[in-house]
């Protein structure tokens, strides 16, 4: 290796190497990991696409190939599987729709079928959203249902107040949110709940001060962020925590430049890509959320595209989709600097 890991923090973002890394992912057929992760390939493509879009290289991946592949993952129920021939799940339906939006191909799906799939996952009595027909409930799915419907301008098709009630019941004494009512606060669930409330225009139910204080304490000495108290820092929380602070208007409550240093230190200087923490093996998930974190943190070493903290897609794409209106729906008191 040409540099020590400490040096990489000063080297800056290895843009070309990350683009090459993302492009190489579909060619690793001799590696067991390629096959073992087949069930979430649609999400893998989404993470890679966000990474190259934010790096300003949206043409790095084969657009038509991706669109055809995604369309092939849609099932008769209207939802999408994580790969061709796999069962539908709201997680993969989200990634599929996000990709179609990013590649400006949403008109290629029957919107009524996708909307029908999502609407069918809501429990009419409780407002809760299931991940698939087997009934697992989670606040992640609450956010995803609203996000997917927003792309089709169909949020009004579900009981939004019911979704908000469910999110509210998942709030805890620290101001954070768990996987559902009773669940412990976790930064990734905090993001999904804030993003759901942002789309619903109901961030007023959030205890902004307490939650911002809890999120700010997620930064550790290394500059990296963890997801819960007493847990290790991890590059993916650069996204979950900082997107939450962005929605709350409080990214300045942590030291963003030290966070950038931590993310850059987790780059694989040889093969490209970003790992969960320095010295570990890179993967596309952490590459995506590392770069998105750098964008939110205002990294100055490279002109990254601005990322939308609710949708985890480039702001330019979200504007084109007419969905930046969540910013206008922020509580009035949050809008004053």
């Amino acid at each position: 290796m040409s540099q020590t890991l400490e040096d990489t923090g000063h080297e800056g973002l290895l843009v070309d190497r990350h683009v090459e890394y993302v492009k190489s992912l579909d060619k690793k057929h001799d590696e067991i990991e390629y096959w073992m992760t087949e069930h979430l390939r649609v999400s893998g493509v989404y993470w890679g696409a966000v990474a190259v879009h934010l790096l300003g290289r949206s043409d790095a991946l084969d657009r038509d190939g991706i669109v055809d592949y995604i369309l092939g993952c849609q099932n008769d129920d209207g939802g999408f599987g994580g790969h061709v021939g796999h069962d539908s799940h709201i997680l993969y339906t989200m990634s599929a729709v996000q990709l179609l939006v990013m590649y400006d191909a949403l008109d290629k799906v029957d919107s009524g079928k996708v909307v029908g799939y999502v609407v069918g996952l809501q429990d009419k009595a409780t407002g809760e959203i299931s991940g698939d027909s087997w009934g697992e409930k989670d606040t992640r799915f609450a956010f995803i249902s609203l996000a997917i419907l927003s792309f089709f301008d169909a949020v009004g098709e579900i009981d939004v107040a019911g979704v908000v009630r469910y999110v509210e019941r998942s709030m805890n004494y620290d101001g954070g949110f768990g996987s559902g009512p009773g669940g412990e606060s976790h930064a990734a669930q905090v993001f999904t709940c804030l993003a759901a409330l942002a789309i619903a225009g109901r961030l007023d139910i959030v205890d902004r001060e307490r939650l911002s204080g809890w999120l700010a304490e997620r930064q550790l000495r290394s500059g990296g962020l963890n997801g819960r108290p007493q847990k290790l820092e991890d590059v993916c929380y650069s996204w979950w925590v900082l997107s939450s602070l962005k929605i709350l208007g409080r990214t300045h409550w942590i030291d963003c430049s030290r966070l950038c240093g931590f993310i850059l230190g987790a780059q694989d200087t040889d093969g490209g890509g970003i790992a969960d923490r320095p010295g570990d093996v890179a993967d596309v998930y952490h590459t995506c959320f590392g770069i998105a974190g750098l964008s939110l943190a205002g990294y100055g070493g490279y002109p990254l595209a601005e990322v939308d903290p609710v949708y985890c897609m480039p702001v330019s794409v979200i504007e084109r989709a007419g969905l930046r209106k969540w910013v206008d729906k922020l509580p009035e008191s949050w809008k004053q600097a």
Partner: protein
Amino acid sequence: MHGHRRQALREPSVDEKEQNRQRVEKYCTLNTSVMNLRAQSVFTAPALDLTKRLLELNTELHTVWNYRRTILTHLDTWQDPTERQRVLESELDFLFDIIKKNIKSYWMWNHRVWTLNSMPQADWQRELALVARLLELDARNFHGWDYRRFVVSHMDDMDVAEFAFTTEQINRDCANHSAWHNRSKLLPGVLAKSGNVAEMLVTEQSLVLNAIYTDPDDQNAWLYHEWLVSIQTSDEDRLRMLRDKVAAIRELLELEDGDDAGSKRPLIELVDALAAIDKLEAVAEEERRECLDTLHRLKSIDGGHAGRYTDMLQMLGKRWELVK
């Protein structure tokens, strides 16, 4: 791929390449067989066995878990309660073996929930003992805690016993936030049943103050205290608790004796407590000044959070009209 260390790059040996090739081939062959059977809607015992072999290699295949459940419900054994009970009991054993290997897989926990819900006679007591064992391996695992709440929700009158379980966990490690969290969900129910609410709240306050003294730097205990204040029934009680908190902080700060790193958290809490008291009954000018001075001090000892302290200075300054 969490926590997987990067090795120095080197070319794999011929043997390693061959081993890897065989591993890929074995996995892909099995995966293709299962997916083909599923596509042909084959719901037989041999197909069920193949799904087990595949899931042992990869627990993340939700489509295969779905297929496995569909097969189970199509087998003749499903119609006979005794047989169904036997089949699902062995399903639980299979799951326990693989959950131990990968406690963080959502799909396995879902499958366990489905299995329990489908059993003619679910043994919730056994599940509770099992999840206690898993939490011994990883006391903060949120899948384990979520599952524990699911199990408890199927049992009668568990609030007091569960509350005692969190006390036990906290006594073992007062930084176990998962236990504190669960306690906060149980406390209202326990209070409602208690004959002496006031006494229970005093005990609760001393438990959390003890956690604060043990590790003043741990934000969680302070948040729990704040919450405890908020659920008091009268402003009088709230004021008393906040004043107790301020006294405790002053004591801690004396112990820290100017150690900046150690006093950061108590200093933030001092400002928060005084600001909270001020909302109930205006605090003296002197204490307001102290809040602002403390925030200035925090900015210098905890520069990483300077933005937060600046915002707090502005907010309190505006409230008290003390700032330029």
